[in-house]
């Protein structure tokens, strides 16, 4: 971290960063925004196109109702107000990945505006204002010929329009973000919410979640805004933080030298971990936005919005709150579970089966041995093959004293391997804990009889020696004896 960085650890920062993010999310509808083509990833080029999304002459767009629902759902989850009337505009510019040389997007009458997202930074919460959430269509993809695959070095490119027309939502924040770390946490929180809503797979590698940032610096405490730069290609959580850190450093360096920051669009290169200015186009952008005359307005009445609101599941923030306040889970455990939708759903199912007395055991399993196993095998909880019901019966057996926690670990391992029910595993290997006092008493008597010396030590007051005797009982029962019970009976017998 360089000397200018405001890292919120008490170090005096000379410059304060003002950061805003624009995030594009590809919605996981069945079909594209304005036509019936299936969405595709990895399909053969130009096999998911039709006259509409190829922009063939004479074709017209028709809005996908599911895309609108998904967009509204997202906007509501980000605390936005849904605008009663919104319209689509055309954004006009020529580029080869644009089938019509205009993009259907929303402009001055977007679907939703004025929301916020609270970003938990551990020691403080940053409330990031959401300026707007709007819908638009994605572009096609360019494949640059030549060995490097770089645009600047190829003589020609090939266009694949499979992605063209994929429904996108764009989420624009206010310039409320103050550090690169906050930007990263904002994006993590945003992604998590969208995953909870199940409206996008949010894969940054596959480009279904893409982020651009703008950043300017101002002297700490100053009111006036500095000149901002826009940074493109921040397509991982790491890159967004690294890119903004680099840009902070660069701008601060310029200001220190008394130079001006130029208003630019810059590209982040993760290989060199630097940003560089994109070549300025001869013509400044003039998108000539105007209402798309091929489409009619969207009018959202309160009832329709309410219906969609009802479909919104409990979101991560609310979940954490419930885990802390109602379930009494430790803070870290609560956050860990809520940070993954499937894990949280799994846990909620366990909590439901087990009830308040035992749900903490489930939380411990899920964040402990279970998580370690998934991590080792690189699996998602859904892929584990262990149902919440199975895990719960395992927990019930431990809590009910039927098996020891030590045996439980090996039972769990076998569950993971064989996908068998814990009940069956225990039966098969005869692992049930021996809690029969008569049976245990008999074994204890045998151990006492066979260890005169140790027994004498215990009777002489060497309390520790009792551990050896209990160990002998456990060995004889192959670990199945209920240790607490053995301890009790043993003590009683030796005190006689």
């Amino acid at each position, binding site marked *: 971290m360089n000397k200018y960085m405001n890292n919120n650890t008490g170090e005096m920062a000379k410059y304060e960063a003002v950061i805003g993010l624009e995030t594009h999310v590809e919605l996981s509808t069945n*079909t594209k925004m304005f036509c019936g083509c299936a969405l595709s990833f990895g399909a053969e080029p130009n096999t*998911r196109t039709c006259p509409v999304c190829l922009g063939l002459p004479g074709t017209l767009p028709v809005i996908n109702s599911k895309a609108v629902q998904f967009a509204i759902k997202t906007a509501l989850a980000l605390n936005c107000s849904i605008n009663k009337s919104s319209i689509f505009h055309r954004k006009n510019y020529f580029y080869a990945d644009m089938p019509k040389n205009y993009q259907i997007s929303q402009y001055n009458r977007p679907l939703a505006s004025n929301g916020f997202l609270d970003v938990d930074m551990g020691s403080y919460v940053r409330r990031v204002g959401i300026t707007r959430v709007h819908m638009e269509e994605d572009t096609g993809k360019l494949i640059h010929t030549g060995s490097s695959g770089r645009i600047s070095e190829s003589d*020609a490119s*090939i266009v694949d329009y499979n992605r063209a027309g994929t429904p996108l939502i764009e989420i624009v924040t206010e310039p409320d973000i103050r550090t690169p770390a906050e930007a990263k946490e904002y994006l993590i929180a945003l992604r998590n919410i969208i995953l909870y809503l199940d409206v996008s797979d949010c894969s940054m590698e596959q480009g279904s979640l893409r982020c651009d940032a703008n950043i300017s610096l101002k002297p700490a405490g100053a009111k006036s805004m500095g000149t901002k730069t826009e940074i493109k290609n921040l397509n991982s959580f790491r890159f967004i933080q690294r890119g903004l850190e680099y840009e902070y450093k660069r701008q601060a360096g310029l200001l220190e030298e008394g130079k001006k920051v130029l208003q630019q669009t810059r590209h982040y290169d993760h290989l060199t971990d630097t940003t560089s200015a994109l070549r300025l186009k001869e013509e400044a952008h003039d998108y000539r936005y105007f209402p798309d005359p091929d*489409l009619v307005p969207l009018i959202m009445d309160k009832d329709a919005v309410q219906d969609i609101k009802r479909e919104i599941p409990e979101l991560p923030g609310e979940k954490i709150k419930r885990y802390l306040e109602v379930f009494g889970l430790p803070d870290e455990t609560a956050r860990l579970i809520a940070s993954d939708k499937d894990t949280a759903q799994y846990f909620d199912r366990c909590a439901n089966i087990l009830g308040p007395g035992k749900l903490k055991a489930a939380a411990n399993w899920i964040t402990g041995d279970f998580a370690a196993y998934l991590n080792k095998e690189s699996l998602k909880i859904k892929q584990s093959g262990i149902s919440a019901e199975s895990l719960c019966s395992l927990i019930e057996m431990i809590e009910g004293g039927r098996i020891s926690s030590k045996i439980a670990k090996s039972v769990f391992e076998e569950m993971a391997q064989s996908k068998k029910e814990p009940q069956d595993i225990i039966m098969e290997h005869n692992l049930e804990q021996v809690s029969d006092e008569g049976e245990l008493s008999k074994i204890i008597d045998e151990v006492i009889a066979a260890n005169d010396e140790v027994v004498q030590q215990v009777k002489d007051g060497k309390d520790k020696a009792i551990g050896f005797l209990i160990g002998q009982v456990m060995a004889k029962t192959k670990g199945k004896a209920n240790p607490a019970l053995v301890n009790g009976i043993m003590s009683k017998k030796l005190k006689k």
Partner: protein
Amino acid sequence: MKIISLEQASHVAKLAELELSSDELDKITSQLDDILGHVAKINEADTEGVRPTSHTLDTNNVLREDTVKDSLSQEDALKNAPQQSGGGFLVPKID
């Protein structure tokens, strides 16, 4: 008074991706000037408090179900392509 200058017309031609020779540009600029001069008549209309009309329909919320329809074959998609390569539309060096 001229409404549109040669420089403006040249800028507009660039936005519209039209290559015009200087003769063409001269001619089209003066024609544009005539037409825009005529069109300026709309400024005489009092539109205080009048909403703009994008189209004459009073319909809204025209939506379709999210149901997959057949796409074109790659062959049909590329049928009219001036140049193609590897299943894609071939374009010259991107500038």
